[in-house]
């Protein structure tokens, strides 16, 4: 039994590269190949924290670069030295770069026509929020002090209740299925797709 699978190809990462420039190049390259193949968001895990970002006119904007959007929050900066893994993603594709003992590795997943997948919505941390004029929303959970800023403002807030979210923000994840030799199905690949705040 064959299931239509997405394309998954390794990407070359030069030895000495600028992370921000390399990510911007990947996004521009995909958009050049197909105008509807846009990478919108960035989610990175680094030694010093979780970093959200988004592409605006081909430029990568994170919570700390080019300007510190939330100076009161001490969000980490995206840098090669502390990066564990980073994904830039859109509706059709995702580029992922991750650190290994032998340097960085990267790959590109692109959905083909009729690619089959299982969608999953993963709830993001935060019951309350505050929009930022630069396209980010600061999220926190009740009285707990943990905060993060998602590059997404299409979030309904209840102003009367101190910015309580009407619906929780969700990360759309796509899982791809494969069968092993004995016919057992398993998720063999997953990627991030989008952010949403729609009611389920």
């Amino acid at each position, binding site marked *: 039994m064959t299931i239509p699978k997405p394309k998954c190809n390794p990407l070359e990462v030069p030895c000495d590269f600028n992370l921000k420039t390399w990510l911007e190049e990947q996004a521009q390259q995909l958009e050049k190949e197909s105008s509807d193949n846009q990478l919108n968001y960035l989610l990175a895990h680094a030694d*010093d*924290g979780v970093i959200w970002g988004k592409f605006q006119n081909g430029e990568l904007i994170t919570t700390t670069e080019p300007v510190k959007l939330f100076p009161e929050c001490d969000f980490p900066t995206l840098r090669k030295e502390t990066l564990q893994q980073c994904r830039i993603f859109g509706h059709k594709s995702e580029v992922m770069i991750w650190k290994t003992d032998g340097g960085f590795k990267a*790959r590109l997943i692109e959905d083909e026509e009729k690619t089959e997948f299982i969608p999953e919505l993963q709830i993001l941390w935060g019951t309350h929020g505050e929009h930022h004029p630069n396209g980010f929303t600061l999220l926190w959970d009740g009285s707990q002090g943990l905060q993060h800023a998602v590059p997404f403002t299409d979030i309904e807030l209840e102003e009367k209740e101190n910015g309580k979210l009407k619906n929780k923000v969700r990360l759309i994840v796509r899982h791809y299925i494969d069968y092993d030799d004995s016919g057992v199905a398993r998720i063999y690949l997953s990627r991030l797709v989008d952010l949403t705040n729609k009611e389920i």
Partner: protein
Amino acid sequence: MKAVTFLLHTQQPILATSLQGDPNSDVSHPYIPGSMIRGFLIGRYLQKNRIKVNDDTLDIQQLPNVKRLFFDAKTTRYLNAYPLIDNKRTLPTPRSWYKDKGVTFSEDKEKTIYDFSKIPLEEQKELTNDYEENLSPKLLEENFCLVDEDEVLLYKVKRRINIHNKRDRKRGKGIEGSGAVFSYDAIDAGQTFQGVVLCETEEDQSIIESLLQHKDVWLGGSQSAGYGHAEIQLLNNNHEYYEVESASRERIENQANLTVTLLSDTIIYNECGQIVSNPETLRQILSDALNQELKFQENGIYASSIIVGGFNRKWGLPLPQTPALAAGSVFVFENIDISSDKFHEFLDNAKKIEKQGIGERRVDGFGRVIFNWLNEETEEYKAKLFNPEFQTTQQAQNKEPLKSESSKIAVGIANRIVRKKLDDLIIQQVSKISLTNPEEISNSQLSRLMLVARQVLYEVEFEQTKYENERRSITELVEPINNLLHNLPSNALKQFERSKLTENIKQCLNVEDSWLQNVWRSNPETKHLIADDQPKVIIAGEDKDIDTYITLEYSLRLIIAVVKKIMKEKNND
């Protein structure tokens, strides 16, 4: 491998939350994760070096040590603290071990464990189909083991389950709509775990040791609710450290197959950047790292997968949850050609893998791997549960050392007891000794001998007030007596020989084969005061033995006493 090893004695239950059980409850890992140990050591390092929360701790220019000590798996790795039994760090029970269904392990009776990774498939079938054996194999529930040849001690971590209910912050109690009941399944207090930090240099070793000096530590979750207190006991780290006893070369050379056992959960990426718990991906990674194509033996995979996560206090967020190959997973690969030219390279690579681990989060103790841990000829083990009462008795015997003042008092008491016993032995010994012809020796010769013996005794007593390395040697000290015996005028020499006094003195002064040792061992009052096969008195862990200087001192006292006795007897006559 340079390592900092230490013990963690749990004083309160420890909540090292894993991703199991009911979502409303927290179930702890049965060990203290390396990430938790790394976390508290980072906290101590920041405090000690007065580094502020907002400082960029990962800036190598400003703080050159931080990345090397806490964030780089190539230089430092914080291994999981596994339970300590029999003064050894246990390891995860191999998942190739099976018991017969229904068998329960006990502390006194040995039961059989079958290692299916060593038993050929045909024999496995025979075991399960045989009418007499009729083995119904089941995996072991005990998480940790200690292996000594074909004997195994199993250990199941004691747990504490507490029920809590959510309280309203303002009213201090559960209210309608906010009073959920949940449970914490934690590692119980009163257990000991051994932690290990692997590092590359002596400098790093001493920095980490200095962070472990303060003995009280709080680990894991719910620290404000009576969880997490443990005490640190730093161990001696002046030796190379290996997670299993024999070196990797012996293990790899002596066995036909290559068996890989995971000593901690292992997170691996496949070529697509997907974290998988797939043995095939592990095989590829190991083949690349060893530079040798490995091939699974038929029926050679005994693995399971789990989901791992965690919490990063710096992030203030939970870590991404990922699948991992579970600790204790066993993979058997087909024989590698050890005679080939590539074997040395293979061995070096294998050593490197054992040292560095494989996969992700190695700095937190993930990805520990060992080659050919268990002897391939041992197919069955005799196993019983570890008896904690036995350890408690042993621990009571090996209490922590006394403080210096108390130690001095204890040594003083032991010293006085030794001397009192020796005084008694001398009295008994004097009464037993009788010279052959005491009337043959004149009082002036006896006085001369006593004078020299007293002078030497005075010097021996003085030498004992000095440090051992500053003392004069025994030969030097007894020289005046030897000179006396050798330089006697012919008449006096005859007197000494006829009375056999020379012979007795020489026997007495032989401190190597001392009369004192023999008498101490045979006397009913002292024969029970023997430790490590030496006459010894032990008070509160402090001991006092009979060294050569005490032996010489009491030999001289004996000579003086015997001489006095002869003079007295002669005078009475």
